[in-house]
């Protein structure tokens, strides 16, 4: 289940902000994922969450320091993959 690091359809990132992938953070991912042509997932330990659902993502339980993988299902959504990964890397703009 673990994606290869150089897979074009997925990227692994570590959640750096203090509150982790909480409601407000998840709420920032949703509008990005909604623009995607196909489905976008956030994956933790092989468990997938729909990136258009705040609740599904929060249900993964990702506190600060968790490594997650962002996965797209259509190569055309590569920009969205990068944007979401970047958003996570910068801690959703939180301290």
């Amino acid at each position: 289940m673990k994606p290869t690091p150089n897979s074009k359809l997925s990227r692994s990132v570590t959640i750096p902000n203090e509150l982790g992938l909480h409601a407000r953070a998840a709420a920032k991912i949703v509008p990005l994922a909604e623009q995607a042509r196909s489905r976008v997932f956030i994956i933790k330990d092989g468990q997938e969450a729909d990136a258009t659902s705040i609740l599904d993502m929060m249900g993964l339980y990702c506190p600060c320091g968790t490594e997650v993988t962002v996965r797209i299902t259509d190569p055309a959504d590569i920009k969205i993959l990068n944007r979401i990964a970047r958003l996570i890397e910068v801690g959703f703009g939180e301290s």
Partner: protein
Amino acid sequence: MAHSTAKNLSLQGIGASPGIAVGKAYLFEREDVDVIEKRFIRPEEIGAEINRFKQAVKKAQEHLREIIRDVPEEYRDHVYILDSHMMLLKDKMIYDGTIEQIRRKNLNAERALKVAVDKVKAIFRKMPEGYFRDRGSDIVHASKLILENLLGTGPSKISDIDKRVIIVAHDLSPAETTQIQLEKVKAFVTDRGSHTSHTGIMARSLAIPAVLGLADATQLIQTDDLMIVDGSAGTVIVNPNEQTLTQYHDRKERLEEHQAKVTRTSHLPAETTDGHRLTVTANIELLEEVVAVMDHGGDGIGLYRTEFLYLNRPALPSEQDLFDNYRDLAEIMGARQVTIRTLDIGGDKFAASVPWGEEMNPALGLRAIRFCLQSPEIFKAQLRAILRAAYFGNIRIMFPMISQVEEIIQAKQMLREAAASLDKAGLPFEGDIQIGAMIEVPSAVFMADVLAKEVDFFSIGTNDLIQYSLAIDRVNKHVAQLYQPLHPAVLRMIHRVVQAAKTAKIQVALCGEMAGDLINVPVLLGLELDAISMNPISIPGVKNLVRALSFEESKQLVHAALKQATTSGVLELIQEAYGKSFETAPFFQASGE
């Protein structure tokens, strides 16, 4: 008339935001999401039922959008909560989940929504950490917005209130609290909630009195009932009689006048007219209270109760959880001193994580230092966390409920072991930390000279010391009047401890509710304590009073008080010396522990 029959009914809850309000009740009712009719719909109705649900979501969104648009300036910081509720309304797990329940299980929309919401709630309930798990309530609040539209009850229009009222509610969601027009609310009263709930935090930041956690206020109070809310004492009085009303009107007036005066000067040191300085610090149990400590001019934190992080969670906090918390506190307080008291609860409190038996007599049982010494793993994790945090600020450590010197010796040994293990692990920590004993058991009072050789400071915990020495459980109504902080026996014990500390040249503080009660202040000053520690909101009043007192006079007062035979004898002395102005003093005292 829809008035309650109860006359002058007094209810006790949690004083979550101080101040007094007198006014008419406004009962804010809502459908409870848990009582939902279950109906099976016919296959041909499915399409219509799904549509009905979609319409309800749409209306809920419109309603929420209006709320967000109309959020007053002072609440702008809280809008993000509503924004995420907005998304939750259309979240797949709720939205698609409900539609699926209607389609597959032939359920009515209300019931289908409940099934979908319950599934999500179950996921959150399983989570270990406080923050995430607490978000379960957001889902409930968001789903209620949909439910109200399904049921046709419409949103409860809290913004429609047209007169100044006291809001009485089972619980208030963030959406509801932000809609309330401040100028129309005199106070909040709720069945649920605690000091840390959203309503409590918001009420404090807006300086509106609030009493929460009353359990059955909504059952006992009806709209238009006259009521008094005392957010300082955590008391609510329903349909007060003339006498009570007059009493509270007077107190409210005096409190407001007094508060206006003292808060202006709360940052000045508590220095007597003859130049003696008393350190006035705060007792807190939540990191969030630090703001109140600063606002009220606390010289430091004299007692940080560390139980909160251990309670209400399935597993014990990790050393890292504790460290993060203590470090935050140390960093915020900077140079000001923070006294961390190690865990002061018994094994019976760890229902979920530690398998201890039920206590027959918890006050005399396995608790505080006794429990910690018998649970080295739990204790060491806390000791390590404190030592690590001490690296980042001015922290000292205090052991509670010491009844014999061996306990101090053992605790210090464990502290040394904790330091050695940190050293070995190469983690930064401060090993040279001041160690204190809490003096709250009568045996410790009489052995204070012996204990003083083992520690750097004493802190006299009067709440327990009074309870143990006078054999009074102050929660027991039948004997509560015998709980007397100014009992000559109590004063003699404090005096004895102070003398032992002075002989050994160590610091001595007092932390307990009596420190925040103005009538006790002259005596505490004259007992020559180095510091007194209290609820943050009592600090300005106490400092203000100290500035009006003479140290020499208060020492003379104590000299005479120690010879008194009764509490009333002590009280008479105080009134002789300072007049009747202390009559209202107990009022300024903060609520509960």
